[in-house]
């Protein structure tokens, strides 16, 4: 061990005192509001004290300073101890802490970015380390700065596979600026965690995943200081053996106390007891200031310098257009970064990689971790992130996406190979529920471009749109239908084909827009004219354009989508036009689990091809004729 200077006794005592004050405040607050997890706070009191008042370098008055060390409380249910730290620092008032979880407080049951000192929301277990990986990767490879990233995990969440995805990622990319602290307090919510207090098993697992792992007594301030001061040449895990409920005699290491608050009387006696262990020490602890070496970054107003370079009629897959667009955007802003899950040759993000190899992160087959890494890279507005994979595999990361919305994260995701158009690979690879799940993300914008021009515009818009942006792309080649100078906006549909004689409005997107255009050609021969609308964004949906045009086709409207019936384009349109009098609405979508086959056959079988559209148009017209 090189050059380790043990902290002096005064410092050690001051850190112990802080730990005990954190305990007192965690107990006081949870008892005051009758909610929370005081025992999960007590096990980490010394860890939090040492981290925030000895190890981490940050400006306590400037939470978003890019040079600050980052901290993520992956075990989000220990929120009260995090809030207590900020009371100790003086940023929060004790009175604010005593009204946490209330409807008018910004201190929620689990941390959310409503608080400046929280970068990402936690509370769904096992997600913090992946985000920390994204931050550490950014520090090391993009910012090339000296800030470190600290992540505090519980032992229960070590059962989540996402943790091991992150572990593998961190060692693969040699994130020596990342420190994970494992709070091994033995007890989960309803049972002991599977490895109980076998800290050596945790150590072995961490080491096998390429980490330096140090076992410490998590209640020993000295041991923690020492372990955290060690020089790091690889990601480091501090495996802290702790006691759940430490300091609360009746609850220490006992089952049945998870998420339980102390009664007022019990709390008072426990707090008195803990208070008596706080020894006089005049030493005030201040965090060390960070080294100011993070470069300034601006993510505002990132624009493509030139219009798309495609010619009408040219054929190109939207997935390819995506890769080209992100690569182009990357040419003009060095903070545009991309990542993928070993599908870059399918999603075409390899076009970006080839052009900007230093800004591409291969995340391998670990979709949950990729979304977490993306969220981490985007935190504190350090990067504009584009993460791609097959559309259907974002289902793997849906919990991470749900949390990204709660985190107010600005990440951009691209799902390729949507729908039946994936063909022979079969249903396992077909994204047929992706629109449903992204629509149910409150902060999401869903782009579903239908040609290369609109794909390029979608990428540009996504880079500048807050919240979670999702771009749905398709594998087969489709014709360019827009002029290079066509203007696109979020929430603005395009009328692709119209005439005065239009009798039905058909709304399609991606492949089905092209099927609708083919149906229009077919019907024209029968002197039936249809209006075709490209919604461009499914969320928000351009209700006004749709309603106006449906009115002018006598209320007749058909949606056709390469997606299941539930939650997709059809239901989005349904929601938009509800309560419009006199509308006749029919939907074409995939109704069952599909199968392998040629795309054209599948489109026929599941009834979303040009013939099905034409037939439904005829049927709609004949039944309205009959009604007269």
């Amino acid at each position, binding site marked *: 061990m090189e050059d380790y200077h043990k902290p002096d006794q005064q410092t050690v005592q001051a850190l112990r005192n802080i730990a005990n004050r954190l305990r007192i405040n965690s107990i006081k607050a949870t008892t005051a509001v009758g909610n929370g997890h005081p025992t999960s706070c007590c096990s980490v009191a010394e860890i939090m004290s040492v981290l925030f008042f000895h190890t981490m370098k940050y400006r306590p008055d400037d939470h978003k300073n890019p040079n600050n060390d980052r901290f993520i409380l992956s075990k989000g249910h220990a929120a009260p101890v995090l809030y207590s730290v900020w009371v100790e620092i003086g940023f929060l008032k004790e009175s604010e802490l005593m009204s946490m979880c209330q409807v008018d407080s910004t201190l929620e049951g689990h941390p959310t970015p409503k608080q400046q000192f929280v970068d990402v929301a936690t509370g*769904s277990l096992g997600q913090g380390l992946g985000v920390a990986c994204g931050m550490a990767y950014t520090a090391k490879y993009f910012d090339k700065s000296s800030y470190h990233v600290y992540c505090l995990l519980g032992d229960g969440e070590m059962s989540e596979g996402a943790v091991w995805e992150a572990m593998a990622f961190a060692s693969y990319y040699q994130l020596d600026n990342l420190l994970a602290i494992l709070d091994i307090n033995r007890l989960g919510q309803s049972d002991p965690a599977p490895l109980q207090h076998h800290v050596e098993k945790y150590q072995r697992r961490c080491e096998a995943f390429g980490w330096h792992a140090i076992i410490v007594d998590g209640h020993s301030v000295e041991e923690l200081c020492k372990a955290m001061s060690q020089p790091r040449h690889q990601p480091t895990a501090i495996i802290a053996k702790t006691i759940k409920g430490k300091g609360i005699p009746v609850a220490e290491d006992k089952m049945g106390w998870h998420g339980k608050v102390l009664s007022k009387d019990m709390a008072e006696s426990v707090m008195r007891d803990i208070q008596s262990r706080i020894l006089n020490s005049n030493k005030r602890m201040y965090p060390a200031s960070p080294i100011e070496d993070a470069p300034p970054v601006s993510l505002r107003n990132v624009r493509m310098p030139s219009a798309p370079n495609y010619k009408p009629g040219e054929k190109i897959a939207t997935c390819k257009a995506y890769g080209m667009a992100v690569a182009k955007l990357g040419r003009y802003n060095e903070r545009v970064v991309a990542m993928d899950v070993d*599908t870059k040759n399918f999603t075409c993000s390899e076009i970006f990689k080839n052009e900007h190899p230093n800004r591409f992160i291969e995340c391998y*087959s670990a979709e949950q971790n990729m979304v977490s890494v993306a969220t981490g890279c985007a935190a504190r507005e350090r990067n504009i992130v584009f993460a791609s994979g097959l559309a259907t595999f974002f289902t793997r990361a849906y*919990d991470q996406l749900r949390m990204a919305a709660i985190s107010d994260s600005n990440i951009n995701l691209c799902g390729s190979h949507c729908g039946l158009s994936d063909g022979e690979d079969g249903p*396992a690879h077909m994204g047929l529920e992706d629109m449903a799940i992204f629509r149910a993300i409150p902060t999401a914008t869903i782009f579903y471009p239908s040609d290369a021009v609109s794909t390029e515009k979608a990428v540009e818009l996504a880079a500048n749109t807050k919240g979670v942006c999702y771009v749905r792309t398709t594998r087969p080649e489709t014709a360019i239908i827009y002029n290079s100078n066509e203007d696109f906006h979020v929430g603005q549909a395009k009328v692709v084909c119209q005439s005065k004689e239009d009798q039905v409005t058909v709304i399609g997107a991606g492949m089905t827009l092209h099927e609708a255009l083919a149906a229009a050609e077919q019907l024209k021969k029968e002197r039936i004219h249809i209006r075709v609308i490209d919604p461009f964004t499914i969320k928000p949906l351009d209700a006004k354009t749709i309603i106006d045009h449906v009115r002018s086709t006598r209320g007749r409207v058909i949606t056709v989508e390469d997606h299941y019936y539930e939650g997709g384009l059809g239901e989005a349109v349904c929601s938009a036009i509800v309560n419009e009098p006199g509308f006749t609405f029919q939907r074409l979508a995939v109704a069952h689990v599909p199968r*392998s086959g040629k795309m054209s056959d599948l489109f026929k079988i599941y009834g979303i091809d040009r013939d099905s559209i034409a037939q439904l148009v005829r049927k709609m017209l004949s039944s309205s004729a009959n009604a007269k």
Partner: protein
Amino acid sequence: MSYHKPDEKTLQALKDIANKLRIHSIKETCASNSGHPTSCCSAAELMSVLFFHTMRYKANDPRNPSNDRFILSKGHAAPILYAAWAEAGFIKESELLNLRKIDSDLEGHPTPKLAFVDVATGSLGQGLGAACGMAYTGKYFDKASYRVYCMMGDGECSEGSVWEAMAFASYYKLDNLVAILDVNRLGQSEAAPLQHNMDTYKERCKAFGFNTYVVDGHDVEELCKALWHAEQTKGKPTAIVAKTFKGKGLKGIEDQDNWHGKPMPKDRAEELINDLLSQIQSPNKPLHPQLPNEDVALADLTPIRLLTAPEYKIGDKMSTRKAYGVALKKMGDASPRVVAMDGDTKNSTFSDIFKKAHPDRFIECFIAEQNMVSVAIGCATRDRTVSFASAFAAFFARAYDHIRMAAISQSNVNLVGSHCGVSIGEDGPSQMALEDLAMFRAIPTCTVFYPSDGVSTERAVELAANTKGICFIRTSRPDTAVIYDAGEKFEVGKAKVVRQSDKDQVTIIGAGVTLHEALAAHDQLAKEGVNIRVIDPFTIKPLDASTIVASARATGGKVITVEDHYKDGGLGEAVLSALGEEPGIVVHRLAVSCVPRSGKPQELLDMFGISAKSIVAAVRRTFAN
């Protein structure tokens, strides 16, 4: 017992079969002009030894419950699985050439349209969890001698769900489980992160509690030996970490980049096949798999009925999550086939009531929701059990890919999500399920139950146990009053009209806590002389369109939906979809429209506009228009 090396003839026959499997794989993928022959070739010896030396099964009866189980977790190697069953005689060799065709069941990735496939694969990293469920069932429920083999790729070892399954298998000492890792070095778009670092794989498997062997995956004798040792090992699952080469046996292609998912070029296929043929010494020596011990009884498929009616009285107060626990325990009383599992939330979902009564049929899966769903699917294969897996509804988002695959697998698992919506209160948005209805509605085989009191919860559990496909039951945290008589009958797709009169002016559709808010609104409005009709849909999918349409018509076409869920994909949109083309109906939807926050349940219901107060206001607005 000590290991006896198979005789030379057998070894040669296994080598020959491996090459035959390679040839079939090339032919199949050439015929379909798509597929993954190189990923098949790396696994040829592994498949040969498994199917013709190690595994015990009836080749003409692939679903026999006594058979050893096999899961091809690396589903893209489907052609070699089909080839193995052709060599075993279950499918015709000529059928292989129909791979991936629209009228063939030999799909791009395996699905249970084929009798020898228990679970669909093709979304990587899911096979081992299902294998864990099968092995757990074999060891602890069936107490039978069948063993479970799972073939994985190296690429998918990056998926966290693999390590969830690894931890599970060792924790439960599944010594009847063998994981075979085909470490062929190359992924789809580049080399897998650990390349050929066999030691790292070994250390990881050992650290996760596996008895681990590193072998040359192209040496049939080494494989025979390692698999024999696996069978002798007690108290631990075994991992066979096989060093292989992608495209093994294909000259100029073996171990080369850029051959993932590419069939052999037409002009080279013949030469490659001839080369493989030349290595086959006795083309006609058939090997037959060993037969299984027939120590498993056929599943009793008679419907499982509650032995007694629900024991609740109208007005009793209880949460539906608690009613779930009580109901599940009663179903456990009714049939030994009912099993349950949870993700360390059993004291919140109340599955611990089942655990207390039937400890031998409860599996604690710890905080690993993906693996829990996979285990539930594995337990339910071949109808060995009726499985119920519970957790906070929000955390099924974690397992949505697994649930999606369960539909493709034609699985009959039952999933129960508690703590839905803002009504959980102070814990805040990370714990609130507000997208679960959208998720489960978009699963084609899914039935979505959303019971509103203890009686209907108990009936939902009973119906779910007997309903094919995936069943999801959404339960709530707050205590609510029992509103149904214990004798009330419930059916899938049949709504209940909870309040009605001849003078109803609006139809309100709510479920769970919002049904109770609607009832409160009903009482409040009644005092003002305004009558509203209140409907409990009971199942959100399928939704009882005819009851809803009839009620809507009876109330002048005015409908209000109110749900503790986001606006997209939930009850409101389900109702809109059901009303479809009905003319003259006006629907107003009350739902949560942005990321919510912490607070007291009732405050949050008010703040997000789904409380009785909001309903009353919406009813009044309806008349204002």
